[in-house]
């Protein structure tokens, strides 16, 4: 009994040590996923950036022309659940976390790969319309046998699905293309905290258009619509949907 306790303790210590420690990967492999742990809580560097996801979409009007919406502040809408609410819903953390995970995958790419990732993933189809570039073609373009590429594309695909349903719910219409950008703001440093002048510029990374291929199921859309309504963003998003150009 006591021996088992000591073994569990040693294993937990091993897991929190830096990667590369002998035996760590073995223990982590056995323990994963139920006992995986990492306690870099707000450390070594505390987070200073407010990272937010914004989405926009294109749809076809009655004449068959593409219409583009304004940027819709997805994360900001989710986080409206926080202010003034001592025990908020977890909604506040969803795209906030997912966007940071996406950003990590994006940063793991080489700079040329990043340029490609920020470009469109849509191509002309033989019948004269448009279609999504296939995964195989994208991998061939970005680099074969590169784990970072596959990891990035998986996350890109996930965000495409999210953005498609979000835009469908926000605009209440079928969309053809979606696009997102990551907006990063940062508060002044401690020593400049009373200054009105912004120390850090807002950083925006825009990613290319993606074909909205996700299966848009009415139940999913309804859940997104309810989230948007609960955070009081329905009307402003519909207003943004009216052709702005």
């Amino acid at each position, binding site marked *: 009994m006591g021996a088992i306790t000591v073994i569990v303790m040693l294993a937990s210590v091993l897991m929190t040590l830096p990667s590369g420690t002998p035996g760590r990967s073995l223990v982590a492999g056995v323990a994963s996923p139920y*006992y995986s742990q990492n306690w*870099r809580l707000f450390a070594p560097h505390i987070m200073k950036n*407010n990272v937010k996801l914004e989405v926009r979409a294109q749809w076809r009007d009655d004449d068959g022309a593409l219409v583009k919406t304004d940027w819709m502040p997805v994360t900001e809408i989710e986080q409206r659940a926080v202010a*003034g609410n*001592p025990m908020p*819903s*977890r909604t506040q*953390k969803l795209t906030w976390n997912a966007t940071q995970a996406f950003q990590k995958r994006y940063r793991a790419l080489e700079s040329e790969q990043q340029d490609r990732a920020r470009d469109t993933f849509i191509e002309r189809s033989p019948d004269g319309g448009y279609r999504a570039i296939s995964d195989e073609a994208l991998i061939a373009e970005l680099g074969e046998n590169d784990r970072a590429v596959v990891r990035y594309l998986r996350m890109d695909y996930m965000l495409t699905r999210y953005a498609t349903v979000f835009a469908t719910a926000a605009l209440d219409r079928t969309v053809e293309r979606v696009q997102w950008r990551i907006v990063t703001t940062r508060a002044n440093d401690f020593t400049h905290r009373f200054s009105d002048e912004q120390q850090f510029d807002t950083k925006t990374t825009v990613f290319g258009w993606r074909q909205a291929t996700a299966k848009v199921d009415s139940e999913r859309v309804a859940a997104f619509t309810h989230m948007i309504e609960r955070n009081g963003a329905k009307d402003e998003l519909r207003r943004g949907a009216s052709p702005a150009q």
Partner: protein
Amino acid sequence: MNSVAEPLRPSSLFARFTDWFTRERHMTRSFSMLRILYALAMLSILLPSFPDRSYLWGPASWWVEPEAKRRGFITHNVLITKSSEFWFDISYIALIALALLFLVGFYTRFVTPVLLIMLVSLQANNPYLLNGGDVLMRITLSFMLFASLSQHYSVDAWLRKRRQSRAVQPRRPLFPPHLAHALHNAALMLGMFQIMLVYVTSAIYKLMGSEWLDGTAFYYGLTLDAFAVLPMVNELIWQSSPVIYVSTWVALWVQLLFPVMLLWRPSRITAVIAMLFMHLGIALLLSLWAFSLVMIALDLLFVRDQSWQRLGNRFINLWSSIKVARRFQQFKVNDSNLNKVGRTEA
């Protein structure tokens, strides 16, 4: 000389440890408190997120599947399904019901394992909603399966007392007492060890970052929108440099020295109280309730049963003295009334 060394001889140390380990269950009141706090932590996630449940973990969270599937949880998409709105709702409500049963301590021995499996299933559905508190709860609750969590402050305890007073034959225990005690105490050791591990490793990582050493980290925490419950209050707090410096330093050093501070009673009390306030602050200002409640519950594992009892007695004394004072006041009121009546009569 010899008599001083005697208790420190390895053989006698081992004998003392074995005795401590198997003779009785330790910190049973702390464990009962832990049960209540864990239940509240779960409810603080499940209830406010109830309207968003499908968006977060249910059918509308289908878009995270490519990643969620790869995490290797066999519990993923089994008990808490994403394919049916109806069954998802049923299991979500069942999870809330289990958390409530856990809170009041009703058939805790059977509720705990089911609750753990359901909790892990929910966590597996969306990796982008997890924070340290969820992971800590998952890991430690699996240790707590072996501890007795409902010896106090629970329906189980009440039922047991009633059965005893009716002189009903007590049920035969599942394990022989010494083994049951050893399991309980092993869970205690693992729980205590886990919280020390969290504090010390996170403090060592903090030492590598400049914001923790120059005492400004707390300021940056207060500037993040995702955590700003009351932006006005945050702004008010960061106006004051001493508040920022002192909170940052206390957070860093108490965490780093936590295991050492546990060795001496006065510093142990200081450490537990400091961590208690830190986590209450995190809960209120950064709205990380589940995380904070779990941490507080684990901190309280270091409070001995006698201390809980003493605290309880002090509370009861305070309560009764308030009652006495009130009665005295009532008496005084009646007294003045008598005087009034007396005057009108005169």
